[in-house]
Every structure is written in structure tokens, then in C-alpha cells.
């Protein structure tokens, strides 16, 4: 009897069973979970995106923590502390999500403090006035929410779940920022000027948070095919500006774009040209505060090393002690 192996024609020749399963799950809009098989590119892409996102939350604590001791009232101080604490929490949710893909916390932290990892360029801008706490909440967190709401449906389960928690908490951030600006705009001439000046500085960097234009966004197409990303950069940016214009009217601030106008045909707000050279400069590490932000993170990590080591040593000692007690107890029986 001859043993003939009939090729299985039902499966595509160059695709493995696991890959087919993965593709089917993505196709069905289902979720990929940590122990599922996934293409190396998918894993890499997710680790990059999630860890960058986590770093952004952690570095993002700095521009605001700067104002905790200078907040104008005890209430504002408490709010700001809660917000900065949230950012720390968001960073941790995201690091945990990245860890489910096999990345280690230590590797991610090392990459950040060595200047090898990226984080959102927005946090490299300074916060010289109190009104900046308002602009960060309204514009920066507003843009973040716009970006993050669709990420709640990202195809990778742990990432989507982390984003659900984050989005719930971000809406407080945006509202408190809006309220700071609203109060300033109802104040003295100087306070109104302070608010407007701050909006002028943050508006364009906030629009850049959505990333480069679609035709210059190398990772976007693959990310969308994998359903990690659900909308293009330009699409989300447009959505954000459409929401912003009526909110600016409520505040009584002007948006610093002379070309901004309503397009009757598309029923959208057309915006002026974005200065992408600035974006690339800041991303390349030449923004106003890049060096300072990284140095502060590095210092915090190094200053905290003894605490981490001490806690680990204590835990090891306690475990050993418990084990010893158990052995002694068994021996006495």
C-alpha cells in the first residue's frame, strides 16, 4: 500500500492554521486575548503603541504636577492632585496591558529613561500659566478622548479594556479644564487674556496629537487592517475640531486659525495648514521641554530605586521566614 499525502486544498497554501484563526477573529470583529497566537508584527505593533501610550501618561504628569503647589485654591489643588494621580493610574493600566504581550515593565521603563522610547509630543510643551491647566484639560485631554474612545474597541482585549477605564476617567479631566477656562473668561481683563493666550499656545500642538496626516502615516494602514485603530488621523482630527468650535464659542475664546471656516458642502470645519516641521522637531527631541521631562523621569526612577529594592528584600525575607516557620511546625508534629 502506498502512502499518498493529499494536500489540503481547503486552506490557503501559505497560511498556517493559527494565522487563519487569527484572521477569522479579526474579520469577525472579535477580540484577541493574551495567550492566543498572533503575528509577530501585530504583537510588536501593539507593544510599541501601548508602551508609548503608557509613557505619555507617565510623562504627562509633569506639566500639571508643576502647578499642584501653586493652584489658586485648595479645591483646585485637590482636583489637580486627583487628576495627576489618574494619569499615573492610566500609565499603570497600560503598562500592564503591554506586559500581557510579553514586554517587561523594567524594559519599558529603561527604554523610556534611556530616551529610546517615544511618548506624545504634547508633553514637551511648558506650562507657564495657571490657564494652561485649563487648556490641557480642555484641548489636550479633549484630543486624547477623541483618540481613545475608538480604542476601547481595539482588537486586542487587554488594550481595549484598559481604554474603557481610562476614557471613563478622562471625561472628568476635560470638564475640569473647561471649567478653569470658563471661570477665567468670566474674570478680569487680565484673566481673560491669560486664558486666550494659553489657548493660542495649546491649540495647534493639540491638533498635532492625532499624528501626521494620513498620507504620511506609515503604520496607520496596517493598524487599521488589524482593527487596533478604527479611524484615520485626519478623520479624528476633523471630528475634534468640529466639537471644539462650538465649545470655544461657549468659552468666548477664539481659536488661533485665521483659515478656520465652516464648509457648507461637507458640513465640517475646514482648518488651516498645520506646521508639521514643528511636530517633527518636537518628536525628534528638540521640543521646548524634552530634555527636562526625561531628566525628571530619570531622576525619579533613580531616587526611588532604594525603595523598590528595600520592598523586594523585605518580601523575600518575609517569604523565607514563613517557610521556616512552616518547616519548624511540621517538624514538631
Amino acid at each position, binding site marked *: 500500500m502506498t502512502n499518498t499525502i493529499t494536500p489540503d486544498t481547503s486552506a490557503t497554501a501559505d497560511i498556517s492554521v493559527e494565522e487563519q484563526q487569527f484572521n477569522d477573529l479579526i474579520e469577525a470583529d472579535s477580540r484577541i486575548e*493574551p495567550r492566543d497566537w498572533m503575528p509577530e508584527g501585530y504583537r510588536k505593533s501593539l507593544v510599541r503603541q501601548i508602551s508609548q501610550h503608557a509613557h505619555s501618561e507617565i510623562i504627562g504628569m509633569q506639566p500639571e504636577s508643576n502647578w499642584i503647589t501653586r493652584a489658586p485654591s485648595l479645591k483646585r489643588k485637590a482636583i489637580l492632585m486627583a487628576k495627576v494621580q*489618574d494619569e499615573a493610574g492610566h500609565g499603570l493600566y497600560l503598562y*500592564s496591558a503591554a506586559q500581557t504581550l510579553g514586554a517587561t515593565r523594567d524594559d519599558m521603563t529603561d527604554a523610556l529613561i534611556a530616551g529610546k522610547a517615544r511618548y506624545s509630543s504634547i508633553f514637551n510643551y511648558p506650562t507657564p500659566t495657571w490657564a494652561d491647566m485649563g487648556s490641557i484639560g480642555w484641548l489636550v485631554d479633549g484630543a486624547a478622548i477623541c483618540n481613545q474612545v475608538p480604542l476601547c474597541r481595539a482588537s486586542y482585549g487587554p488594550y481595549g*479594556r484598559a481604554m474603557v477605564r481610562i476614557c471613563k476617567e478622562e471625561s472628568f479631566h476635560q470638564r475640569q479644564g473647561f471649567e478653569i477656562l470658563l471661570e477665567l473668561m468670566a474674570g478680569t481683563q487680565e484673566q481673560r487674556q491669560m486664558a486666550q493666550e494659553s489657548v493660542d499656545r495649546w491649540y495647534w500642538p493639540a491638533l498635532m496629537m492625532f499624528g501626521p496626516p494620513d498620507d504620511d502615516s506609515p503604520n496607520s494602514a496596517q493598524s487599521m487592517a488589524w482593527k487596533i485603530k478604527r479611524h484615520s488621523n485626519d478623520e479624528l482630527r476633523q471630528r475634534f475640531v468640529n466639537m471644539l468650535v462650538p465649545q470655544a464659542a461657549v468659552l468666548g475664546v477664539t481659536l488661533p486659525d485665521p483659515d478656520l471656516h465652516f464648509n457648507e458642502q461637507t458640513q465640517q470645519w475646514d482648518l488651516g495648514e498645520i506646521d508639521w516641521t514643528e511636530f517633527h522637531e518636537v518628536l525628534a527631541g528638540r521640543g521646548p521641554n524634552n530634555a527636562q521631562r526625561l531628566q525628571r523621569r530619570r531622576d525619579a526612577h533613580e531616587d526611588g530605586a532604594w525603595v523598590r529594592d528595600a520592598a523586594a528584600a523585605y518580601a523575600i525575607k518575609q517569604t523565607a521566614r514563613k517557610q521556616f516557620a512552616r518547616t519548624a511546625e511540621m517538624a514538631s508534629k
Partner: protein
Amino acid sequence: MTTPGDSASEIWPLWEVFVRSNRGLSHVHVGSLHAPDETLAVRNARDLYTRRSEGVSVWVVPAAAITTSDPDAKGAFFESSAGKNYRHASYYSKSEGVKHL
């Protein structure tokens, strides 16, 4: 099989966190965190996952202590319930229209 995050290069082990949002409900997995021991794991879990009164009770479990079903054997492992739709009430359609059934 190693638990993600439980590599030799991590100083602190990974813990999985479960929160009971209210009396009468079960603890639900909310995420994970790093902590040197169980006492600090519970405290970190409180700070990280219950900042807005999301819970009345927290469990922490060392991630390494969790045993899961083999993801590759997914189909075969859970197969026994497939094709047994008579285990569901909706299988019995003849009683339709009869009240309190």
C-alpha cells in the same frame, strides 16, 4: 508556560486584581499590578483600581499561581457543550404561549 511579566528581570512579581463592586456581586477581574508582597499588592490595588468607590472588596492573586486552560486546545476542550442545545430553555419551543413556563 511562563506568566507574562513574571520574568527574572522584574524585581516585583505581578498580581491579578479582582474587585467586588457591591455586596451581592462576585469579584470581577479588573487588571493587574506589580507589588513586592500581598500586603502592598492590596494597598496598590486600592489606589489603582478603586479611586472612585468602584469596590467594597479587593482580591489579589499572584499571577504565577493561576492555571489556565490551554489556548491551543480551545476547540476540543470546550467541545462537549457544543451540539447540546437541549441544555438551554430556548430549545423547548412547544410550550410557547403557555404562561409561567
